[in-house]
């Protein structure tokens, strides 16, 4: 099962490699990982997507908690939450296809943020499956480049993950 683990971790050099090293050393897989400092610059927030049965996820969360730099963590998949991923896509365009691409972008509530005679760069956020659907809407060969952030998420309601 897919789990989204949200981690509050000391913003110190090497913190990311401790997390990544733990996963490779113990044979867990990381589907995606995003990390950036929080409103408190001494802390980073990491969102990690992984898969595994209940026993594996239990071990993953315990092992992560054991890392000295980890302050707190939650498994977002355990409760109601929102997740979003950012994607930038560079798409080939011709005079004939430009309108069609633009309407596709509108349908998916994306934005065209760069235009040349032969290409668009589209910015889009949403759940990962929405981004997948957008990409699948194009013929093979029409996409020049796809850059995705990997999902990041937050729980619904008043409670937050903080010190």
């Amino acid at each position: 099962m897919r789990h989204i683990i949200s981690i509050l971790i000391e913003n110190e050099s090497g913190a990311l490699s401790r997390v990544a090293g733990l996963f490779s050393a113990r044979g867990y897989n990381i589907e995606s990982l995003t990390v950036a400092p929080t409103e408190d610059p001494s802390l980073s927030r990491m969102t990690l997507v992984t898969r595994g049965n209940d026993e594996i996820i239990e071990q993953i969360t315990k092992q992560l908690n054991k890392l000295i730099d980890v302050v707190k963590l939650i498994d977002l998949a355990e409760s109601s939450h929102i997740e979003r991923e950012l994607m930038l896509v560079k798409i080939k365009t011709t005079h004939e296809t430009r309108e069609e691409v633009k309407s596709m972008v509108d349908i998916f509530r994306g934005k065209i943020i760069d235009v040349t005679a032969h290409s668009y760069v589209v910015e889009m956020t949403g759940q990962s499956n929405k981004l997948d659907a957008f990409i699948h809407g194009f013929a093979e060969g029409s996409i020049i480049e796809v850059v995705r952030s990997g999902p990041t998420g937050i729980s619904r309601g008043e409670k937050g993950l903080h010190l």
Partner: protein
Amino acid sequence: MELSGGHILVQCLKDEGVEFVFGYPGGSVLHIYDAIFHQDDVKHILVRHEQAAAHSADAYARATGKPGVVLVTSGPGATNAVTGIATAYMDSIPMVILSGQVPSPVIGSDAFQEVDTVGITRPCVKHNFLVKDVRDLAETIKKAFYVATTGRPGPVLVDIPKDMTDPNIKIEYKYPKKITMRSYNPVVVGHKGQIKKAVDILLNAERPMIYAGGGVILGEAHKELTKLVHLLGYPITQTLMGLGGFPATDKQSVGMLGMHGTYEANMGMHDSDVILAVGARFDDRVTGKLAEFCPYAKIIHIDIDPSSISKTVKVDVPIVGEVKPVLEQMIELIKESDIKPSKTALAAWWEKIESWRSVNCLDYDRSSTLIKPQYVVEQLYQVTKGDAYVTSDVGQHQMYAAQYYHFDKPRRWINSGGLGTMGFGLPAAIGVKLAFPDSDVACITGEASIQMCIQELSTALQYNAPVKIINLNNRYMGMVRQWQEFSYKSRYSQSYMDTIPEFVKLAEAYGHIGMRIERPEDVKGALEEAFAIKDRTVFLDFMTDRTENVYPMIEAGKAHNDMKLRVAPSTPMDRELS
């Protein structure tokens, strides 16, 4: 008081109450060594190889309960220490390793003797630090000791670039008295409800087994464990790391369990209906085949580390907390409880255990004309009155030591359990002897293991650490040979060395006494003679039976009730090598 980084470091060690630093100098740590030169409070023990520095410090910690301290230079100094660090990590031993690093401006430039020490050691330390500002040095050292010694203990490394100890940069020194870390809260108190539940299950057990590990020793809970076991009247088995946590000579002890555990311990585990695991981690050498591990038992598990719970074996009642207070609470609850263990059920259970015990699984051929390694350990036990500190290397001799030296006290049995590091024994013995100069220290080893850190004979002489080396010399890597005999149709691939040194001469070359013992009737006398010599290291080279195997044995991947017992002595299979 304004001090340079090098002096700050040494002052930190003094303030931390450090008695010994085991180390080896080099370019990146020269400023620190100069600071060491200026004082006498912290004694530096110069080893002959950095691996040994880590093993000696580790064993010092195992024997005393105080953290061991290691000082090595950058690059090869640090990489040589890695085996020793990993050894301590696997057995949860508190240790602080100070490693030099190239000056911070050149980090990352592949400078002379530069390696990414923080990166290399990350998977085998509890935590590590890179000091980037000399103003953080004292606090970082405090944190290192704090992390190493609290919670589930472990090694912590502090990597110190050379410019952090520059004698020309002096800053105000203040060693923090206390430290807190928002991301690290090691004090965990066992859940009351869980403890109550555990006690109810324990008291209703009909075929109980207490399974105790190294956590009892690390958590200083041997008294509480002994009290609990006596109060309940249940049988107790111990892991390799747990030996000494409960007196081996007590009649409730059924000995060690696992791959080379006793018949009664393993059969007892397999047939039990309730298991109380105390500070043990269900290691694969203990459990054997997981799918058939203790099929009838409800399992209660006390451990300070939540990640140890249900890691390999699913437990029914987990109790996360320090072993000692949890056991204290259990004792109270048992005394208060209206439920008493069923006397008839317990009597029947003990009867069963006694029937297994009567198999006498540790018996061996006592009439052999060759020296049996088991006999040497038994005699060592007699001669030292069971009161020596015993270190070991890794292999058959380690198992013989665990099986035939009966440890009644904690911290007397010093061995590399988790990592299984050959070369551990001799430097470990030196670390222990320095801590307890008036006690007997024996290193039980083999001719293969001893050669992995034999250079430390020189350290033993320099620091007057007279240890007794019990070399069970069977001219084979015994455990490898045993597995090859059992699983590879006796194809003894590379498990034999035909150029074994003359250890007597070697010992003499290092300034010690060497003895070679070839007949069983000489074993006791040689040991008595060696232990009577208090001020010299004695290397006793016992020529033992080459064919001897460690029994009983659960072969890899088999269950507790599927043990290989010794075939009757002098049957062809047992003798084919002689």
